[in-house]
């Protein structure tokens, strides 16, 4: 058991290194700029390979966009300005954290609504179960049968 867990951990570590190795190499430059670029581009979606971030993608367009973001960082633009620059061209789609808008309300409120619905369902089910769990009243015949059982210690009907 321990060995298989160790093997699994080792495999996880190895996949981690492989993924890391595939990440696009950052161009040499001011480490502060590169750090900001990295943080920013991890939150931006690549449009060519849509399930990769701008930081992870090696697509031509991602390289170009990273270069432009780098230029803007060097030019002293704030992260918000750079995000606005990108969304003006590619829309909110590039943001992995979309802003709260009329069209994205369901996206943001959805998990909370689902949680509330699930809790309400759980509450109602539990309440119904507790109500049903109350011992049902015995009819006259059943009561007599039960008493006979208790007094003789055996079932009179099975004799």
């Amino acid at each position, binding site marked *: 058991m321990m060995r298989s867990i160790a093997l699994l951990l080792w495999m996880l570590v190895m996949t981690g290194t492989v993924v890391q190795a595939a990440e696009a190499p950052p161009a040499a430059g001011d480490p502060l700029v590169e750090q900001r670029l990295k943080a920013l581009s991890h939150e931006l979606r690549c449009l060519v390979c849509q399930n990769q971030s701008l930081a992870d993608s090696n697509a*031509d367009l991602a390289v170009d966009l990273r270069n432009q973001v780098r230029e803007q960082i060097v030019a002293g633009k704030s992260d918000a300005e750079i995000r606005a620059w990108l969304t003006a061209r590619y829309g909110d789609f590039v943001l992995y954290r979309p802003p709260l808008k009329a069209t994205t309300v369901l996206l943001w409120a959805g998990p909370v609504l689902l949680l509330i619905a699930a809790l309400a369902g759980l509450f109602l089910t539990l309440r119904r179960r507790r109500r049903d769990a109350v011992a049902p009243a015995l009819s006259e015949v059943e009561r007599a049968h039960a008493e006979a059982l208790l007094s003789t210690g055996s079932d009179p009907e099975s004799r």
Partner: protein
Amino acid sequence: MNRFLIPLGVFIVLVVFLGIGLGLKPREVPSPLIDKPAPAFTLTRLDDPNLSVRAEDMRGQVWILNVWASWCVACLDEHPLLVEFSRQGLVPLYGLNYKDKPDDARAWLARHGNPYDVSVVDGDGRVGIDYGVYGVPETFVIDKQGVIRYKHIGPVTPEVLDGTIVPLIQRLQS
């Protein structure tokens, strides 16, 4: 009764959402540039690097900007259609030669025919980014006021051309 109706209801809702999801085209990201002024550019012409073209030069007429490249395989799909469309002479058709080598681009046009009134060179792809280009070919319809009215991502098909682009141009021209 409820016992079966509730799971069935949930199941139906899931199926409906799945059905809607299957109909979506996740590769076609709606452009925020629709109904916005076309980004300005000044680019040199592919046929003569000494001449340049500005987006503002096109004011007062409806025109089409088609993003293409010689390395773009899908561009060949729409190419015959564009050649035929340009023969009608309905509107000026401008090409944005995106991240291409000018020699390759000229050779490509010589080989497959040149539908463009003018092609301009966007060698580093900066103007492409300004236009929100992420998948070549892309086609923009720009009105007389210089506002982008329509964008098509991917190769133009006869259905899109005859069903959407041409009627839109006729409406914008009148």
